[in-house]
């Protein structure tokens, strides 16, 4: 093949660029510790998510010292909990969200953060987050889910450890 030397140069530059991009992503995973939503959450029966061991009654649970689990059920057009009552979690703790849908596909995003996942009927999205500061985050549903999709939103209230202690949160053992 007859390839101009400039083209060879550019070809090499392109490979460098691709390698650098992939290396950045790997650094994000291994160095910065960003984990992808995967298949760890398991599957549930979309008609009755709580029937499976993979999903509890929606709400906030304490699973260990400084570890909390939040089970969120999304349905047209509300997060339960989240929409009618805010999700209250402590700052500086490991909070794992388990999000599933009992009707159609939804989204779950805390605006202005990297907490962002799809919510698919039959699948449980499992995501662990550490909130550094006590503040309120807004949840939006970012996947079209029906005529009132734009009204689907909620709130996560991150409060300080002290404030949170006074609350009554059921303790459960997660294996």
């Amino acid at each position, binding site marked *: 093949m*007859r390839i*101009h030397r*400039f083209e060879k*140069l*550019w070809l090499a*530059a392109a490979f460098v*660029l691709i390698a*650098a*991009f992939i290396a*950045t992503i790997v650094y*994000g995973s291994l160095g*910065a*510790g*960003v*984990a*992808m*939503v995967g298949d760890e959450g398991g599957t549930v029966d979309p*008609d*009755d998510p709580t029937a499976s061991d993979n999903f509890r009654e929606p709400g906030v649970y304490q699973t260990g010292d400084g570890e909390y689990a939040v089970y969120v059920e999304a*349905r*047209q*057009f*509300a997060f339960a909990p989240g929409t009618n009552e805010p999700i209250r979690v402590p700052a500086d703790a*490991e909070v*794992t969200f388990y999000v599933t849908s*009992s*009707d159609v596909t939804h989204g779950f995003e*805390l605006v*202005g*953060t*990297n*907490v*962002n*996942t799809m919510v698919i009927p039959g699948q449980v999205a499992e*995501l*662990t*987050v*550490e*909130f*550094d500061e006590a503040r309120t985050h807004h949840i939006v549903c970012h996947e079209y889910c*029906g*005529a*009132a999709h734009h*009204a689907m939103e909620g709130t996560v209230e991150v409060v300080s450890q002290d404030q949170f202690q006074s609350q009554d949160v059921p303790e459960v053992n997660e294996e």
Partner: protein
Amino acid sequence: MTRLDNNNTTLSRRGVLRAAAGSATALAAGAAATGTAAAQDYGGWFTGDAKGGAVGNYDGTTVDQTGQDEVTVEVGVNANGGSFGFGPAAVRVDPGTTVNFEWVSNTHNVVVEDQPEGADWSGDEEINNEGYSYSHTFETEGIYKYYCDPHLSMGMKGAVVVGGSGDGGGGGSDAPTVEADYGDWFTSDADGGAAGNFDGSTADRTGQDEVTVEVGTNANGGSFGFGPPAVRVSPGTTVNFEWVSNTHNVVVQNQPSDADWSGDEEINNEGYSYSHTFDTPGVYTYYCNPHLTAGMKGAIVVGAAPGGSGGDGGGGTGQRAFAGSTLWKSVFAGGVALAMLAPILASYYRNRTPAGGSGGAGSETTDEITEADEFEPETEIGHDEYDPVGTLALVAIYFLILVGMWAFTYFVEFLGNGPTIVG
């Protein structure tokens, strides 16, 4: 299209309809509501102007099931863009009839919105799935309105009319009657957010000389409400607005054409008050400017309620269907206009002077179409004598831009955008 008859319903007209209802044929539940008595007045309940969405499966008719002991209403029939309907949406029964609500799809409940005085229906607020059923015996005459909470915004609303008449309110007065029609003012379709503290009902304060409206009550995610958001007063009533929290004002959004309320646009704090006497009958809507987006909106209706009921905000026809038809029709009309325009356009272009210069409007059509002349380069440059240095410079710049923007987006925007999913 008329989906609902509400703005001009009068007592005498309703009497006629009541007589008509008696002769209507009873139909099986869930069947199309043909041949039944129409135009029961639900005060706008089935439109998008009441709380929740417009009810697509309510076509203005009330299915007449009088004369039966047991009547079935299906919960979650196919309607409103999913399985979000009550079937039938509106049904008329005799006093003492048991209505069986049967769930035919998932995640629905039955929440009572409004019922006649003295009635004790509590609905079934637990969310249940297909196969579940629940029944209630309706004794008290009047209109019962209910909805499904998860799908209210889709328009999953229903009504049961017990007895020949569905009207429960008190007597009328000499004052002119004004429908509590707020359009979509309390929804987020209007300016600002939805007023979460407006539940569709208008507080009836008619017959009083002075009425108080609190400014900045706890609502809409903070102290962002008027209390009550909608109030009905008699002409000549003085309304006292009393600030119960900080940084609010009262801005008039709309009022009857001959009214002269100017509101109080200065922003004031707790303890302040302001009053205005409302003489002209009609609907006044207003809001707090700093908190409009939060849904801090209010309305005052001056005049007696039609038929004496001080209840729900009525409204125009179902806005959704109306609006859609307009678009549909204008697209159709546009298509027809275009089709009529086509011959005119065609003759215009056929007689247009060609731009090429050779021949005028009437020039001969040639058998073979000639193309433009092939481009002749000033200098021929072959592969081996050509080094694309300009291209190399451009792609090098592009490379640097890519690297810089990638680094910024990844390390500043993304990794600085915590919290992030770590497990």
